[in-house]
């Protein structure tokens, strides 16, 4: 669908879109810039944009104070583990819903989504007590399971919408040729579903990475991810904008970079079956 437009029109489009894009991106840009300032420059009036003495001091302080790599590693394991586990549980379910739909499929799907509406704060005590009983406090395994459960409805739904787009005739043909269920999934379904699974994985990785209630309240040392890292830099006594910016940049940088590299897959993934 190549549309041809006149160059001036394209120029206007470009300028306008860039302006809007930069406006939306500006808070992040400003945070990154601030992280390279001294604390005094960070609150200077009028604000300084670029002509300050760039310093890495804040990063050095943050690095010295907290074991960033441990928090990062925990974030990766928890977000990655919960996503992986979620996909493993969700793929068969979504497959069944898409290819063997019954009268209740839609109800089950919507019921799954409704489990996401339980307010986390209200069940902190029950879950905490449960975690003590099971010995899961401050363990990555416990968090992987909780975050998996939180995001499972979304995963199932996203996968369901992809699978539905796969024409049933192909499967039918494969079955005629004597393909077993296993072969059907492995050789036909999986290759067709890979883009969908990739985007599902990405979206859920982001959601799990940014989850800040359970990851903060169920961890102490061993399993604490980057959300806990941020909680040690927000509003201490004293001036803190620049250090907070440095810590924030460190917390969001990995996911931002990942998101940028994979944005094409993500864009594909965020349809939720909205496109027919």
């Amino acid at each position: 669908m190549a549309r041809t437009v006149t160059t001036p029109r394209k120029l206007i489009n470009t300028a306008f879109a860039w302006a809007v894009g930069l406006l939306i991106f500006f808070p992040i840009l400003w945070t990154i810039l601030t992280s390279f300032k001294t604390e005094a420059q960070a609150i200077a009036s009028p604000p300084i944009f670029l002509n300050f003495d760039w310093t890495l001091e804040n990063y050095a302080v943050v690095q010295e104070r907290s074991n960033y790599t441990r928090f990062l590693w925990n974030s990766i394991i928890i977000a990655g583990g919960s996503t992986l586990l979620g996909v493993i549980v969700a793929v068969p379910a979504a497959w069944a819903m898409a290819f063997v739909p019954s009268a209740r499929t839609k109800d089950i799907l919507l019921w799954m989504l409704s489990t996401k509406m339980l307010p986390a704060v209200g069940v902190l005590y029950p879950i905490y007590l449960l975690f003590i009983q099971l010995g899961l406090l401050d363990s990555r395994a416990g968090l992987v399971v909780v975050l998996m459960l939180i995001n499972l409805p979304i995963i199932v739904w996203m996968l369901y919408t992809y699978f539905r787009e796969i024409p049933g005739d192909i499967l039918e043909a494969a079955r005629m040729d004597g393909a077993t269920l296993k072969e059907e999934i492995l050789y036909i379904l999986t290759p067709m579903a890979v883009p969908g699974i990739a985007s599902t994985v990405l979206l859920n990785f982001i959601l799990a990475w940014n989850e800040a209630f359970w990851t903060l309240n169920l961890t102490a040392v061993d399993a604490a991810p980057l959300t806990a890292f941020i909680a040690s830099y927000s509003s201490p006594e004293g001036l803190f904008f620049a250090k907070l910016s440095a810590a924030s940049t460190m917390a969001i940088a990995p996911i931002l970079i990942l998101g940028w590299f994979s944005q094409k897959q993500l864009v594909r993934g965020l349809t939720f079956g909205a496109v027919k």
Partner: protein
Amino acid sequence: MYLKSLLWAASTTALMAGAASAETITIATVNNGDMIRIQKYTDKFTEATGHEVEWVTLEENVLRQRVTTDISTKGGQFDIMTIGMYETPIWGANGWLVPLDDLSAEYDVDDILPAMRGGLSHDGTLYAAPFYGESSMVMYRTDLMEKAGLEMPEAPTWQFIREAAAKMTDRENDINGICLRGKAGWGEGGAFITVTANSFGARWFDEDWKPQFDQPEWKEALTFFVDMMNESGPAGYATNGFNENLSLFQQGKCGMWIDATVAASFVTNPNDSTVADKVGFALAPNSEGVDKRANWLWAWALAIPAGTQKEDAAKQFIEWATSKDYIELVAENEGWANVPPGARQSLYDNPNYKDIPFAQMTLKSILAADPENCCVKPTPYTGIQFVAIPEFAGIATQVSQEFSAVYAGQQSVDEALAKAQAFTAEEMEAAGY
């Protein structure tokens, strides 16, 4: 022979104890300057005792939510918790904390300032050791005070403060006569308005636990505060807490600031503060004729949750962290202005510390605060800027939200007090008072 074997047994047990005691203790703490600093020196503790230390550093509100959940469910995630004067007596009474009644002679528990010890005890038993303590005092700009043609007395009244604030205010040059906390939250604006009310003769509850917001003293205090802040305070003070005011003051945008004594070392630090050499100190004010000053009392203290497997190691750490030696260690490496203040008498007797400009005023402020007698009128509770009952944090947060809405111009003083009275009465009744 008998004696020999006994000695042998004794020495092996000692050895075994020594070997078994190499533990890793987990400490939950708040992300304030002094607490960050000690993390750098933890290696020295590990060298001396063999115990490793894991720090969990959290922002104050998150910390509170985290440790309270853990201790009330006996989650056992932490071997030491950093808590304040509000939590300590309540948790101590519940039997949740290990009593600190067998500290070594060398530790010299009697050196801890009596007010601090009192505030961190329940029924005379110490449950948490103060890492640093604070009261509140006036910090003011000596240059602006001079320009206004006034002189700050050592013990000013609110009326003087208000007059000085009005004279120092220079809206053209972005100078506000006075910066005070207005931010909602029992530990932020709630604490400040409570001590202000105390210094106008008010109290939270009478002897029968009846809330007192319908009394004239509260109205007088709140009206005075709001009027003064509207005259001379910064824009948007309804969302200003400690941090916001600190940066305003450091940028030279405040004539006066009444807040925690620990702020003194921040505002006089030339690295961060543009007004470091122009700051004077005075006692927190009282209203004319009222025999109570707006002094609060707070300590961040280390406590051991009952049931931890590592009680001995935890006690060793607390003795080390709140000792005289630790103060010396910090002084040696970072200078006397950066030692944790407000906990020990010996610090204030130390000739090296006497040169610190805010040292004596800090001590005087702490001594002026008495958690057993917060108010002019008698009260059934302990605590100055808080009431040491479990229901207080919830009630006071909501009350302070009503007050902040007054500061933001969204309701009148009378409306806020009426709501505060009704809400507090309702909550206290539900709690069975």
